């Protein structure tokens, strides 16, 4: 596990579970604690009253999320937090991709019940990007598997880099960036966060940045 050590100084503990070894480093511990704390607070918070002004009126109106809608979105928020914990603790790239896709699905779920055509339109576009990006995501992992014969990060950390692995890594980067609505594919995200319900929207931002942080580590470990 040399690359993992280079990145994290030491490993707190790992669970020997066949080929797949979930491990805990100071980095992943910090991530897990962050996610847990955020998920708890986001789930406890009540949605804000969004104040809206219109031209030609001297009134400030407030709107908020309906009770039923809030219930569903809170559930999706918690689910997203659970998926994120999976993303940051897993010691196996394929599980990583699955959890990243799960994060994408729950993100879409958070916005699925918003009664706003703009938001739903953006969410739909994001869903399309997410589905397309499952090709590079799983494809990259399959390339890495074909090249090295393993998916365990602990084993991959010891395998030196080569061109095929680099292609796999690049595909993995593109895929995860698309699933998490990160930098180049984030145009829809800016549109989506127009929706009401601060705690739930914030979860989406948290999820994409956590996926991003973990992705950096995985890209360094592979190859």
């Amino acid at each position, binding site marked *: 596990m040399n690359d993992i050590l280079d990145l994290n100084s030491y490993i707190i503990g790992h669970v020997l579970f066949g080929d797949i070894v979930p491990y805990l480093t100071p980095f992943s511990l910090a991530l897990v604690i962050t996610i847990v704390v955020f998920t708890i607070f986001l789930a406890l918070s009540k949605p804000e009253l969004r104040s809206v002004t219109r031209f030609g009126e001297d009134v400030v109106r407030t709107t908020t999320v309906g009770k039923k809608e809030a219930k569903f979105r809170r559930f999706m928020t918690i689910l997203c937090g659970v998926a994120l914990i999976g993303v940051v603790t897993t010691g196996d790239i394929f599980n990583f991709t699955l959890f990243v896709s799960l994060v994408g699905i729950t993100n879409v779920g958070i916005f699925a019940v918003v009664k706003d055509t703009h938001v739903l339109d953006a969410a739909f576009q994001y869903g399309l990007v997410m589905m397309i990006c499952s090709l590079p995501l799983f494809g990259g992992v399959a390339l890495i598997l074909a090249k090295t014969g393993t998916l365990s990060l602990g084993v991959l950390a010891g395998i030196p880099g080569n061109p095929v692995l680099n292609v796999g890594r690049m595909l993995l980067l593109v895929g995860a960036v698309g699933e998490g609505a990160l930098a180049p594919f984030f145009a829809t995200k*800016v549109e989506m966060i127009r929706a009401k319900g601060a705690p739930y929207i914030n979860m989406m931002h948290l999820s994409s940045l956590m996926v991003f942080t973990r992705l950096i580590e995985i890209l360094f470990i592979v190859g």
Partner: protein
Amino acid sequence: MIYPAAGSMLYMLLELITAFLFGGLLLGLHRKIIARIQGRPGPPIVQHLIHTFKFYIKELTIPETSSMPLYVAIVLALSAVWVLAFLVGPVLLGPFSIIIMCYAVHKVSEHGIGLASGSPYTKMGSTRAVLSATAEMPLIVAPALVFFKTHTLVLSDIINYQILHGSLFMDLPLAAIATFILLLSKTPFNPFGIVWGKDIVSGYKTEHFGVIRGVMMFGEILGFFVLLWCFLTIFFGGIFNTPLTIMLTMIGVTIILGFICALTPMIAPYHSVMIQWIFALLALINVLFI
């Protein structure tokens, strides 16, 4: 006189307070320089610290529209994140990846602070926070280059590498510039500060007064200190590796930042994002001559 042992809690707490005071003075100096360049006398250097303490005795109002307890918790999260980054970075010289995480969570907190109050101005600020999350791009490029060069991301090992092989700035100048842009985008009054631009009142901070603003400023001062320290340590770790040299260089870099902030206007949101991207791509070019 008995000094607390390095690594004990008292030591860390004292370091934290020192960093907070020093960072506050740096930001005060930053304001002073901007004022002098613009031909104003400007506030005294301690003004930023006084400002922070002043907020502690001011009335705290929480808007009725806000989403509790997120409104308070997210500000606490912002400062907690920088406390963690400070402890892992300058104090313990631990893994750099945790500091990357802290930066990412800082972005999330900015976004959450804006959303939680329910005001349209803060909402606009938080929307821009998502937009300017592209500033994360130098964040992936710079550590990647450092990792490929030194084969480690633990800060103490990076410093040792630089003491042996010379500063990384010589090898990775473009990555250093990209990180400098990242640092610039976190200083007050910077050209990329679309998140708290005055065109949207105060951006995501519009609705935060009183104690909670004080806690927020505490976090921001620590954040500025940590980012400045990381920039100096990662790229100039071979030259500046004693507390005194680092403090002196921090003052120097703050003066440079002050000049940049005073002389450049605020850039429009999309241009700001575009310029940050260009610098990130420039850093990628650095891969060719590692």
